């Protein structure tokens, strides 16, 4: 059996606004559009993924928040309706997805073997979080690949951002080893924003783009700093500065997704592909991809 490999790593923010703006048949809410910079970036990245051969998407989500270790989806199918608890007016999405349980179990077992607290989630009534659904929908609207969702163990709040770096990196390495031993080709997804301060009021028409802007300039400057480092292939440096970035901007990196992904990919030194940056209700969001293949890696933006 050939060694498995990570064929791409995507930073894929999950504001439900992006699915709302797309008006897919699965979502009950209707919009007049909005947030095109991110959505068009997502569409271009989705087209790229169509041209990459892979077996599964493994996604790390901050909206499945677990305090007792890291949990993995552990049943082959989940079908239900996801309603965003914060933006239910925008996101009521009927999903029907498949899970690569063998891969989930392999990652669980490897992480467990390395001393990480883990749990398989096997309750059929469990509702898959909207972060998973939003990012996966935008990266693969056909839902024709199985997924594995990994929960966010809340180390930042319980301990510190530095502990999160250590824990999520260890988890990433364990997942990478399990992927390699599985023989599968996998796309990793870190589902989150960068800076993450929201406005606490919403425009009467949520997709009114005349109302959309970053929460404050400090958030923007920090986001640009991180994106510049991504462009320059300084992923190790991104992780080094992550604790300060997270604290200064209330960044959603606090959930550990990007740390996990870059750790699993061995801190790539090649440039990230940048597909778009835009604010959503004040938060900063970038769509980016790390493509380890020198022949297919692009300078997108």
């Amino acid at each position, binding site marked *: 059996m050939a060694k498995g490999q990570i064929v791409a790593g995507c930073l894929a923010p999950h504001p439900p606004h992006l699915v709302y703006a797309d008006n897919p048949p699965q979502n009950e809410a209707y919009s007049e559009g909005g947030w095109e910079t991110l959505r068009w970036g997502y569409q271009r990245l989705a087209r790229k993924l169509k041209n990459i051969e892979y077996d599964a998407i493994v996604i790390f989500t901050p909206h499945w928040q677990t305090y007792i270790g890291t949990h993995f989806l552990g049943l082959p199918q989940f079908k239900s*309706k996801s309603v965003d608890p914060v933006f239910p007016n925008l996101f009521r999405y009927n999903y029907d997805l498949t899970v690569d349980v063998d891969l989930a179990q392999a990652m669980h077992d490897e992480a467990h073997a390395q001393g990480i607290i883990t749990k398989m989630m096997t309750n059929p009534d469990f509702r898959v979080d909207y972060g998973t659904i939003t990012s996966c929908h935008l990266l693969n609207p056909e839902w024709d690949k199985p997924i594995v969702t990994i929960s966010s163990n809340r180390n930042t709040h319980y301990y510190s951002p530095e502990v999160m770096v250590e824990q999520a990196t260890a988890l990433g390495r364990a997942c990478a080893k399990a992927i390699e031993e599985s023989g599968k080709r996998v796309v990793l997804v870190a589902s989150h924003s960068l800076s993450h301060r929201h406005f606490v009021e919403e425009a009467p028409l949520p997709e009114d783009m005349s109302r959309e802007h970053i929460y404050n300039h400090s958030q923007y400057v920090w986001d640009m700093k991180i994106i510049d480092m991504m462009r320059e292939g300084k992923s190790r440096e991104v992780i080094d500065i992550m604790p300060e970035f997270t604290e200064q901007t209330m960044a959603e990196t606090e959930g550990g997704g990007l740390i996990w992904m870059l750790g699993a990919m061995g801190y790539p030194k090649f440039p990230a592909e940048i597909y778009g940056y835009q604010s959503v209700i004040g938060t900063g969001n970038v769509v980016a991809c790390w493509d380890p293949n020198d022949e297919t890696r692009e300078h997108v933006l």
Partner: protein
Amino acid sequence: MSETNEPEIIFGVYCPPHPQPLLSPDANAGYAKLRAAFDECRRRIEESDADIILVYSTTWASIIGHQIQALENAVWTHVDDDFHYLGSMPYNFAIDTEFAHAMKENSEKRGLEARTVEYEGFPIDTGSVVALQLLNPDNRIPSCILSSNMYSNRAETIVLGKAVRDTLAQQGKKAVVVVVSSLSNRMFTEHIDPAEDRIHSQKDDDWNHKILEFFGDGRLEDLSQLSRDIHGQIRVQKVVAYKPAWWLAATMGQHNNYDGEVLAYEALHGSGGAVITLTPASGSVGDKEFDEDDVEFYRGDRNVLDRGMLE
């Protein structure tokens, strides 16, 4: 807005959000005691002539202002993110929609951002599900649930409580008010044998006992004034502040004139879980001069950087 509105609040309940008392009460003697305490509250609610059970849940986080559950029949099967292996929690709640919509209007009149949520399948949080399933299993009394805005601090939370008073007085409804919150909220970060559950640390336990002493003495406003200390000492910093005592005091009345009763205090995977009742009374531990001001209307965050000098 009337400043003399005096709603009739029959009693208040403070209870934990964890699902063990609902799903696995026999796994630990402490869980069984918490369950028995919930059952006692349920019995008292049934014997009261309450018109509404009003829940403020710290496990329902909101961002766009304060959300108010307004779906007349909220039906779903909930599964907890951490404790999914304990089982599912089917629910069917009868929501007082008249209260919910008036609550939104009264919140806005006091300067708050507020909105009702009225969507089939809306994910009602673990804490609210546990509380309403145990306190009102047959939907004998209509309920309503309020979110806890993750960015709100004291002023907003106090004003939210006053908007509840406005609404109850306006509608002439007698209420049982329920706060869903742990005391200390640090859980063990590994899986444990439930039989060996205990409070995470001695410090957490000491603080919990001090809080319970205050509750037992009916010193609700004193606890409200201590909220920032409690947050710093025994709360994992997930949100900006420990708000339950603020909301409960603002809703029930900002004083110490209560009969407090601690029905149970036990560990829930390391966190402090207590079931407590507070009943309005005439006696008082005493009025004091408090550090924290009262506030009637919310006028937004005051940004000290906006103005360099007073005009």
